[in-house]
Every structure is written in structure tokens, then in C-alpha cells.
């Protein structure tokens, strides 16, 4: 019998049924480990996670977690998360109720043959060039997760692209 294939991951796009949890936490050592550990041991999937100090207040941080609501019922995820003593408040945003934004940075080689196709892709996506080197450029796109998904997909055809995404942040829609 041949050995099973190593796990190479699946093409990862925003899960179909995802939710955004905006979690206010105490800014204490180990808080992120507590959250990550909880998700790991309960088998909840995190799609993306962004952390930053909250509202210019050193005491709290805001963690924005995009959870895969198919890996576990949302009620379970929120209920278990809420039991972490350092978690102060959880806002659960369904995608339709949220304004979501994400930042994408990508460094692209500008070889002769792909130059125009590459520039075309960048322009169409509305990405900005933020750094220029002798043979490559770094572009930035701040936009909806879907726009970032789209640009990422469009760049898939090119080689030697280095691409980073921040994971999204979100706020409730105003109307």
C-alpha cells in the first residue's frame, strides 16, 4: 500500500457560513493563547484573526475572529468563548450586518513578459503601488474580503508572488 498523501491544505476562501466575532479582551499575557487554545481543543475553526489595542485604551484589546460557523454551532463558540475570564464582551456580526475590511500586501516580480498583464491586474483591482524595487513592486489593496479574494485569485497565475493578508476587521452596519 502506498503511504497516504501528506495534507496539503484545501483552497481556502472565506467559509460559506462564516461569522465575525468582535471580541473585547483584557490586555493580559496569554489571552491570545487562551482563545487559540479554546478554539483548538473544541474543534472550532478560525478562518482569520486580527488583534490590536482597543479604542486607545491599554487595558483592553480587540480581537476580530472570523469563524467557520460550519465547524461548530455559533452558539457553542460564543458560549465557550464567553467563559474565558479575560473575555469582556463579544459582538457577533453576521456578514450581512457588518462592514468588513481587510488589507492585502503583495510583492510581484516584474519580468518582461508578464509586466503588462501584471500591471493590468493591479490596476483593475484598484490596488496601490506602495514600494518599488529594481525588479519588483509591492502593492496594497485595502478593501472588502471579496475584493482581496479576487485579487489573490487573479495573481494565482503569476509565479514568485509573495502575498500577505491581515485578516479582517469589522464594525456593525449603521443601517
Amino acid at each position, binding site marked *: 500500500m502506498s503511504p497516504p498523501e501528506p495534507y496539503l491544505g484545501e483552497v481556502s476562501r472565506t467559509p460559506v457560513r462564516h461569522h465575525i466575532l468582535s471580541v473585547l479582551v483584557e490586555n493580559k499575557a*496569554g489571552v491570545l493563547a487562551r482563545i487559540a487554545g*479554546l478554539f483548538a*481543543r473544541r474543534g472550532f475553526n478560525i478562518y482569520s484573526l486580527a488583534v490590536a489595542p482597543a479604542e486607545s485604551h491599554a487595558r483592553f484589546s480587540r480581537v476580530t475572529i472570523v469563524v467557520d460557523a460550519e465547524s461548530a*454551532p455559533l452558539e457553542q463558540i460564543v*458560549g465557550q468563548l464567553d467563559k474565558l475570564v479575560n473575555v*469582556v464582551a463579544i459582538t457577533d456580526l453576521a456578514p450581512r450586518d457588518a462592514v468588513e475590511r481587510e488589507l492585502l500586501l503583495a510583492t510581484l516580480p516584474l519580468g518582461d513578459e508578464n509586466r503588462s498583464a501584471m500591471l493590468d491586474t493591479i490596476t483593475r483591482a484598484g490596488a496601490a503601488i506602495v514600494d518599488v524595487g529594481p525588479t519588483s513592486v509591492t502593492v496594497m489593496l485595502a478593501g472588502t474580503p471579496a475584493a482581496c479574494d479576487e485579487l489573490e485569485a487573479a495573481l494565482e497565475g503569476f509565479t514568485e508572488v509573495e502575498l500577505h493578508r491581515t485578516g479582517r476587521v469589522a464594525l456593525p452596519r449603521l443601517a
Partner: protein
Amino acid sequence: MQLTGAQALIRSLEQEGVDTIFGLPGGAILPVYDPLLDSSIRHILVRHEQGAGHMAEGYALATGRPGVAMVTSGPGATNIVTPIGNAHMDSTPLVVITGQVATASIGTDAFQECDITGITMGITKHNFLVQSAQEIPRAVAAAFHLATTGRPGPVLIDVPKDVTQSMMDWWYPASVEEYDLPGYRPEVPLDEDAIARAVALINESERPVLYVGGGTLKSRAAQELRAFAERTGIPVVTTLMARGAFPDSHDLHLGMPGMHGMYTAVTAIQKSDLLISLGARFDDRVTGKIPAFAAGAKVIHVDIDRAEFNKVRHADVAIQSNVGAALTAFDDARATPRNLDVWWKTINEWRDQYPLVYDEPSAEGPLRPQHVIEAIAAKAAPGTIVAAGVGQHQMWASQHWKFEEPGTWINSGGAGTMGFGVPAAIGAKVGRPDRTVWCIDGDGCFQMTAQELTTARSEGIPIKVAILNNAYLGMVRQWQEMFYDERYSEVYLSADLPDYVKWAEAMGCVGLRARTLKEMHEVIDEANSINDVPVVIDFRTDAEEKVFPMVAAGASNDDIIVHPLQRGGNQ
């Protein structure tokens, strides 16, 4: 007033009303052991840190007050991980203090360093790494608050050596506001709407069952439960974690549900049209195959922990509350099911048909383990506390002992930790010195933590230990007999090795042995006459004996296997 961190730690424990610490010193916790000499707190020096943890659990389960354990860093801390995990599974309030290497050494692989807050993150309700001596009072006050409120559980405080050695200005938090727990809100107001919907479900039910879990004991709701059950006439089942929450002698009590539950308790749940779950969590040992569990029942789920709702079983009405408050609200609304005569008639038929039975013991032995337990119970003073290990003996103890009040059954439910019994019994006796404490143990379990009998003897803690010596890891043997074609793999222990009587004597205890019925009665009488030192009895029981009823793992509760004496006919 200036104190060292160590003095502040001991003083904080005194502030919390701690009367006993179970522990064992070492380098990183050494500073704290010095002011302990000047404290009124009793310290019980264990022989292994696992013993300290289980003693603290036994103390907590018997008294309802948090158990406290203190150990050193590194191996001392890792040795107490099992009890912490056990307490986490059973929601037992514990405060565990671990020494840690000095703050400057943390992260350098220093001698006896280990990341105990990291290790226990998933098995504590919360843990703290204390950063300064000034913070010690707050950490201790917060730890006790967290351990004992809401859904109780273990809390660990890790204190670096330089923190306990440095000076602080003594203070103590005056109120919860000073605990610095902005994210902790254990109590929520009762949801009146949910209560109303629950009452409506109760009012229209014809076959209700009160499914009573450990949360009923944790919220001290035995009286409210009894009042509600007696007013409504709804039958009661008590899970392994809730034994004692409702008197076994009470006519409304059907006994324990689950894998080794009473036929009537299991079947009443299966056939019910309404399950009123009170601080229970639909554990797989109770539900069996989940889709087949009480398939026709609506569910009212009362729990202080909202994460229990809809985790395993859909709740038609979820009420986040302590059990007593919800029951009082049901009573205030005069919740009353339909006429239950038909339901009780059916239940009583099951009771008549499938009582708890076992084979007749023979005079010359081997002894029947169930019979040994009943014989001990028959001669035990009312209010006797029973602790158990994990295995067949535990199930028999839960089945055959008659529990009449809270705090009399001390066992390891969620984790099933072998070796729990002896140290937990010691802790229970320390907490309730007025009570007789029996440990019903297995020969396998006994060998895991028996060294704590040395602790018991030297500290003057006279517990009584009944080893149901079947020469086997009996519960595993039972599964191999029933589900692995009697292929016995690594379960034989020998009845004679070790010699339990000599071992008991070597630890300063009285050691006794019984092989025949006559000897059984004699040794129980003798054990009951000894009240100054621990007693260990080696009861030679039948290795072939199995626990019935039984629902095989993953099977439906409808496929409950009754005792061979009851098979044929309906089975």
C-alpha cells in the same frame, strides 16, 4: 504594614477562611512554607502531589467549600495536573498554588521550571501568573471568587519565587469590584419568559422526568428539588455526579441513569415526554447513542453555564440559572404536570420487573462485591461518607449504597481518574471529621495512590478503605469479556501481590482480610470499632462478576443489558 509576598499569600488564604492546605514543599515554593509555620492554617503533608489535589477535591465535595493545595514548581506542578483536570471535569471548586522559578528565569529552562499556566489553561476555570507581591491579595481573592461562583472549578495561582520573597504593603480587596475581573459575570437575571415557557411544557407533560445532575449539588438545591418533586410527583433520577441530591429511600427516586444505571431510571428517561435537566450536561455515559436518547422528549435545560445548552441535545427551553432559583420559579408558577397515574403505573412495573439483583453469595467465598458494599452500608452510621475509585467497584458503590443527603458521595465522574478514592476519602474526612468515611476502592486503583495512607496515619485521619480485590483491572476485563471475545489483554493484577494487609500495616494502618461471609462480617465489625487509625480491608471478590445493567458504549439506551438472572422473557 510591610509583608513579604509569602506572608501576604498565607494571610490572604486566612482572609478567605482557609483552614486546611494539602501540599508538599520544594525550592520554588519554599518562601511560602516559612510563614505557614506561624499560621493557624493546618497543612497536610502528602506523599505525592496527586494526593494533595485529590484530597482537596474530597474536602470540597464533602464540605461544599473550596479545597486548597500547594506544591512546588516543575514536577510538583505537573504531578497535580491530574487532579486539576479531574476537578475541571466535575466542576469542583479548587484553588491550587504552585511555586514558579523567579520572574527573571522564566523562559530560560531554569531548574524545575515548567509552564504550568500554559499546561493547565484548558483544564482550569482560570489561572494566574502573579507578577508582583503587591498583586498577591487580588490574585487570591479573585481565585476564590472564580472557583466558587457560577459554574465552580479549579483555579491555579502560579507564584514566582522572587515575588514571594519581595516586600509588599498589605492590603486586601474589600469587594468584588477590586478583583479586576471585568469579563466575569457569573449570575444573570432569571429569564421570566423562559420560565413561563418551561412551566407551559411541564403543565402539558404526561411522562416527565427530573434529570438531576451534579449542578444541583453545586447550587445546593437539594431542598428545592425535594419540594418541587414532592409537590408535582415527577419521578427523579440522579446521575453519578448527583448521588445524594435526592434521597435514595424516597419513593419518587428511580436511581441513577446511564451506562450502569438502574433499568427503571434509564427506561423512564427513554420513554419520557419531558426531560427537566437540572445541572446535568447530557454526558455520553448518560445518553448512550445520542439520536436514540429520550427521542420523544422535549427538554427543559437548567444550567448556570449557557455553553451547555444545545451542546449535545437541543433544548426546547434553556434557562440560565442556578438550579434552586429555577425550581423555586417553577413552584411559584405552580407548574404541575397532567395526571401521572398511568406514568407511575408503568414505572412501577419496570421497578418490579427489573430491580437491582446479583447472584447469591456462597458462604465460603469468593465474596460478591455488591454484597460486601451492602454489608458495609448496613452497619454504617447514618451520614457516612463514601468515596470511590474508578471501575466496577465505583459503579457497584453508586448502585448499592443508599445515599440520603448531599456531600456523602465522593467520586470521579467526568474524568474517571483511577487512584482518586483514597486521597479523596482523606480530604473528605479532614473536612468532615465528625463523619465516618469509607473508601470503596479497587485493587488497581488502590495501588495508584495508596501511599497517602501514610499521610492519613501520620496526620491522624482515620478513614476506612474497602478494597474489592478481584485481582483484575475489572472494568477493563469486563469489556474484554463482553466485547473482545474474552481475550484478556493486560488486565490481570494478582490478588496476593502486593499483600494488602502487610502494606497497610507498613503504613501504620490496621490491615484486615476477608474471604468468607463470616470473615466479611467480622472484619466490618472490627473496622467499625477502630476510630483512631486508618483501616484497610482486603475483600477477596469474584473476578468474574460484572456490572449490570449495562448499555454498551455507543449503543442506544433501549438496548440496555440487564443482569443474567433477569434475561429471557422481555429481553
